[in-house]
């Protein structure tokens, strides 16, 4: 019991520090502004394009594409958000401070992932204005909105895990961000590979490995248990890789 308490405490301490760092730097605000402008413009366009304002069409022609786009944009934003997490600590030698402390690798990694996740959640929360606007025009299909937000958050969490791993591989921020993109884009390509094969089993296998495939289940409102299993094992895998990467610094 006390062990769990210590674990939570260590994670919390680091998360607090990371959050402070994130929100004291202009990066978050620049990214948020960009994100808002982009999303607002998309929302406006989709809204104009959809002629009849019924629940059915609003879901189909506005919400689904909006969440799809949000997810896609975070493919780029997440590695930028996370690029500092380990790379900068290495560059400034502060990683030694963390590694000689009582904190375990696990606490360090989870603390950083959570801090970046909360930062992303803050950015995503700025889009809550869309459902509110829709509500004013009488939209009432809330379950799909909830599950879509859930889907976006989970898939962004995956991106952040990958971004943190990329950051732990290098001391260079640009390399870190690019590496993050590349891994995420590479994973996206799985679904295209899936489409290109004639073998149904192989196609399904590749599809299963791509995050967007699972994300779609959330947006369509057809969440299965294997979606969760995939997303959590994905995060577990990259958290473990990050741990190995930190460990390898010790030779």
């Amino acid at each position, binding site marked *: 019991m006390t062990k769990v308490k210590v674990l939570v405490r260590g994670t919390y301490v680091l998360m607090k*520090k990371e959050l402070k760092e994130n929100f004291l730097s202009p990066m978050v605000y620049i990214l948020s502004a960009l994100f808002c402008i982009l999303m607002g413009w998309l929302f406006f366009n989709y809204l104009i394009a959809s002629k009849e304002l019924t629940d059915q069409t609003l879901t189909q022609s506005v919400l689904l594409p909006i969440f799809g786009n949000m997810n896609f944009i975070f493919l780029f934003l997440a590695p930028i958000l996370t690029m500092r997490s380990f790379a900068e600590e290495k560059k400034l030698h502060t990683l030694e*401070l963390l590694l*000689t402390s009582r904190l375990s690798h696990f606490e360090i990694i989870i603390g950083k992932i959570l801090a970046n996740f909360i930062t992303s959640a803050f950015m995503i929360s700025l889009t809550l204005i869309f459902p509110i606007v829709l509500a004013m025009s009488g939209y009432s299909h809330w379950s799909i909105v909830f599950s879509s937000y859930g889907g976006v958050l989970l898939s962004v969490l995956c991106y952040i895990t990958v971004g943190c791993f990329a950051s732990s591989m290098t001391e260079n921020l640009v390399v870190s961000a690019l590496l993050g993109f590349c891994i995420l884009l590479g994973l996206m390509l799985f679904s295209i590979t899936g489409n290109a094969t004639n073998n149904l089993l192989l196609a399904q296998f590749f599809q299963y490995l791509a995050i967007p495939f699972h994300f779609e289940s959330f947006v369509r409102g057809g969440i299965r248990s294997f979606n969760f299993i995939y997303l959590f094992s994905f995060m577990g895998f990259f958290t473990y890789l990050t741990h190995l990467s930190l460990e390898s610094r010790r030779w």
Partner: protein
Amino acid sequence: MSLAIHLKDVTKVYPGVTALDNINLQVKKGTIHGFIGPNGAGKSTTMKIIAGLIPPTSGFVEVDGIEALKNPSEVSGRIGLLPEQPPLYLGMRVEDYLRFSQEINGAQEEGQALLEKIIERCRLQDVRKRLIGNLSKGFKQRVAMAQALVYGADIIILDEPTVGLDPNAIVDVRDLIHELKKEHTILLSTHQLHEVARICDEVTIIDKGKILRTGPLEVIQSEFSAFKTYEVLVKSLSQTLKDSLRAKSFIQGLDILDHPEGKLLRIRVQGEDDIRGTLARDIANECSLLEFRERKMELEEVFREVVRD
């Protein structure tokens, strides 16, 4: 006296480099232990191993009698490390940084009191609310030292704490180290010997991953003092004097330099006996002696002598 740090047959091999070759090191509790060696000797590597930052390739590490490699979490709170590169978050305020260091090392109940004490001791009162990135190098170094002290570790490891500081800042850091002696065991690395001579009780000399000498400062120093250099200024130098000096058995080397007032003899002497009297008389008999002084041999030079054989 019990040991704060005990390394037994520690070897560290980096890919292609043997950084430490079977070293044994004992640091007694309550002492300031100087760890001297030229760059690349393996000082930082040793300190990182003690602090648990990297594992040794083979060997044992004991901290306060605890097996450090098997109980890393037990040991981490007992050791405060100031790495070679001060690990500072430049965007944090001094106070917040120190509190963060307390928190990640398991803050105790009396944390706040300790924080105040360390801030005062490191003389950081005036800068406690300032961003670390805006401080001068000397202050940064003191903040980094405060970081190692602020969670109540008994053993403090300082890796070249005075490198790159201006003379005033060096004095400050040295005073601080001296003050810490009352409550802490300190392992201090440096490549400048005169620093060690002022503050250390015990000294270990390391070069190329091997321990060359270890022991109380006086013992090592007396070994050093076997090498002495006298500088003698004479108006002119006769051949007979030159020959007679060269013939003396205790004179190891004789350099003759030009000097505006005549000739400067630099005489290197080995042995414990005080031969200044005889030497001065001999020279004064032959020519006019203007000046006779012992040249404080830079410990660097002495060090080179020791390392040579």
